[in-house]
């Protein structure tokens, strides 16, 4: 070990040879070998590091409900357990973010900047959920065009310019779509089937976006269904946490963000029957 | 450049079931990538009065497998003192292909025939390692598979009389191969009923 105070802790060059910076793939190495590497535009996220798992969302009578857990995973390590992934923009817009957490924070700052920059003039610009969605989709799409993506999938929920419930997805590629039930990541396999079944039982016509179409779905029922989904996600998604947040935005009652909720009424009875993979039949 | 064995030589085939009859058809092209080599490469073979096999895919394997099945069906005839039934032949094709599970023949076969006992028409298709796809309407194979599915799915109707079935399968094949650069250059249709087999050559685009 090198005891020189400026190189403390490093392997000594005269014993181990010059330190190979390419092992850590560090900036230092690129600076030293600029000639060897092409001047490709600097990229921040080439792969996600600390990540958040699924965000789910569903429409009801006169609004939307969304949920996301509070975990920030570092690979398979549960690194941070108090990450808030539902970003309140204003009283009619919320942004649920999954994927890279550093990019989530970048998006948070962008939204804050947007809010500040638009509040200088006297004209009171009130952004609706669809405006925020369009803004974020343009941010994400232009970052993908620079080959320097923000590594996230988002669901924007709230009340749109038409004064109807709004729920729409957008991801790191700029791909966007709307549906009465939405999810990111693992939720596509675990939560969407539950939410779609719920909507089908309520006789929802997915081609209509007006709130009259959703009059059958009361807030409480939708909330119950979302809680069920969060439970299933915690059961089967290994990168999930039993601590989560739910946000409700309705035309009547505005925005309500509930934090630090715990998954209730869990039953791990089934666990003892699971033997290996498959249906558990032994030969 | 693509070196997928199943699309070097090109070619397509289709079979359809009608009322107490069936039709099986193929194009006549054999090429080497984009170069056309032969316009009389028939891909339909028969192994008994009412048993037909269409073989699409790698030309050399088409020829080899025809010889293999001629050999096997001849032995079958000596042993059993009768010709093979289409259902039995389908299983022969399947097991012969599966025998080469880890070094397969690059072919997609279709079997079609009329059972001599029951008089019922029978068709089925296979993947290159012998998984059978039994079907009661139509079966397609070859480089124009997508086009053939589109044509058959929209033109086909059940219980067609032989001449109507001939028109349907011909239109399906012709229009499908015209949208595939690797298929075409002539076509043949076998119209099979209990007591006769009619072979017709179709006039097609030559590009």
């Amino acid at each position, binding site marked *: 070990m090198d005891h020189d105070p400026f190189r403390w802790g490093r392997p000594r060059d005269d014993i181990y040879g010059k330190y190979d910076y390419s092992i850590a793939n560090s900036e230092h190495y690129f600076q030293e070998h600029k000639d060897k590497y092409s001047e490709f535009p600097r990229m921040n996220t080439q792969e996600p590091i600390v990540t958040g798992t699924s965000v789910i969302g569903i429409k009801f009578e006169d609004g939307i409900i969304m949920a996301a857990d509070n975990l920030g995973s570092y690979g398979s390590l549960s690194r941070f357990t108090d990450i808030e992934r539902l970003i309140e923009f204003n009283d009619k817009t919320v942004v649920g973010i999954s994927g890279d957490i550093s990019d989530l924070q970048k998006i948070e700052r962008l939204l804050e900047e947007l809010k500040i920059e638009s509040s200088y003039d006297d004209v009171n610009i009130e952004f609706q959920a669809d405006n925020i969605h369009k803004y974020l989709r343009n941010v994400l799409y232009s970052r993908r065009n620079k080959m320097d993506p923000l590594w996230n999938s988002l669901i924007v929920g709230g009340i749109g310019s038409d004064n109807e419930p709004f729920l729409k997805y957008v991801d790191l590629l700029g*791909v966007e779509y709307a549906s009465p039930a939405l999810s990111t990541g693992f939720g596509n*396999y675990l939560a969407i089937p539950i939410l779609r079944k719920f909507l089908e039982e309520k006789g929802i016509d997915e081609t209509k976006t007006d709130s009259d179409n959703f009059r059958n779905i009361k807030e409480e029922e939708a909330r119950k269904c979302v809680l069920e989904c969060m439970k299933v996600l915690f059961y089967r998604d290994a990168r999930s946490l039993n601590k989560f947040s739910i946000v409700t935005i309705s035309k009547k009652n505005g925005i309500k963000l509930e934090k630090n909720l715990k998954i209730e009424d869990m039953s791990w009875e089934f666990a003892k029957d699971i033997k290996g993979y498959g249906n558990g039949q032994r030969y | 450049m693509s070196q997928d064995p199943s699309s070097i030589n090109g070619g397509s085939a289709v079979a359809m079931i009608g009322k107490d009859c069936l039709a099986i058809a193929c194009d006549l092209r054999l090429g080497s990538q984009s170069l056309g080599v032969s316009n009389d490469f028939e891909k339909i073979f028969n192994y008994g009065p009412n048993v037909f096999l269409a073989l699409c895919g790698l030309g050399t394997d088409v020829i080899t497998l025809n010889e293999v099945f001629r050999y096997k069906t001849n032995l079958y005839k000596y042993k059993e003192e009768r010709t093979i039934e289409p259902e039995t032949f389908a299983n022969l094709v399947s097991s012969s292909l599966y025998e080469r599970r880890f070094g397969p023949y690059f072919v997609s076969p279709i079997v079609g025939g009329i059972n001599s006992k029951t008089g019922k028409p029978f068709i089925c298709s296979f993947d290159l390692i012998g998984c059978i796809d039994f079907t009661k309407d139509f079966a397609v194979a070859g480089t124009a598979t997508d*086009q053939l599915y*589109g044509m058959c799915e929209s033109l086909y109707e059940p219980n067609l009389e032989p001449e109507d079935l001939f028109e349907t399968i011909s239109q399906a094949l012709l229009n499908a191969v015209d949208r595939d650069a690797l298929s075409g250059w002539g076509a043949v249709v076998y119209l099979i009923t209990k007591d006769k087999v009619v072979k017709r050559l179709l006039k097609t685009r030559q590009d």
Partner: protein
Amino acid sequence: MSSDYSNIKDSAPIEHRFNPYSDNGGTILGIAGEDFAVLAGDTRHTTGYSINSRYEPKVFDVGDNIIMSANGFSADGNSLITNFKTNLQWYHFNNNEEKLKISSAARLIQHLLYGKRFFPYYVHTIIAGLDENGKGAVYSFDPVGSYEREQCRAGGAAASLIMPFLDNQVNFKNQANQPLRYLSLNEVLSLVKDAFSSATERHIHVGDYLEILIVTKEGVRTELYPLKRD
């Protein structure tokens, strides 16, 4: 003495590059009639084996009696259509609200597509409308802007299934002694429905709903039909 690490100095790092494209499935189909044109598309939106939305329209009335769809990678498709609409706005501002001819719209789209020749919009684009003589017109484009006016064209995931059917039923290909004629709107609509229900049957990325936009001199009209959801 030097460590083993020094020997691997020049070994290339493993490459894990960001892929800026994806495929969102779906299929589209345009047919021109004598005094009308239709552009139809299914409304299923997919990535891989997942159905993201059962109703995400991709055929749009972009103004000036022109309907447009860009099928393939939906982020690029949406951008192309927004860009077209913006350009159309500017055309109106600069030319005293003059209506854009469909032939000019087609040339504009060629430039929009070719402008991204070296990072293409991953889409198959079709527009439909009426030409200067009031005849139905369909133009179709490849991802980098090659284009052609046609009587009919299918694009997207199930194009290979639908296109030969159209050759046969719209242009009467391989039907000897069947003279070419214009199809009526009702004939066209039933062909479109047949084409899509067949494609839905055999293609997993096609289904849910069929949205048909119809252009006549009276304007643009929309019809919506259910398709199989499996």
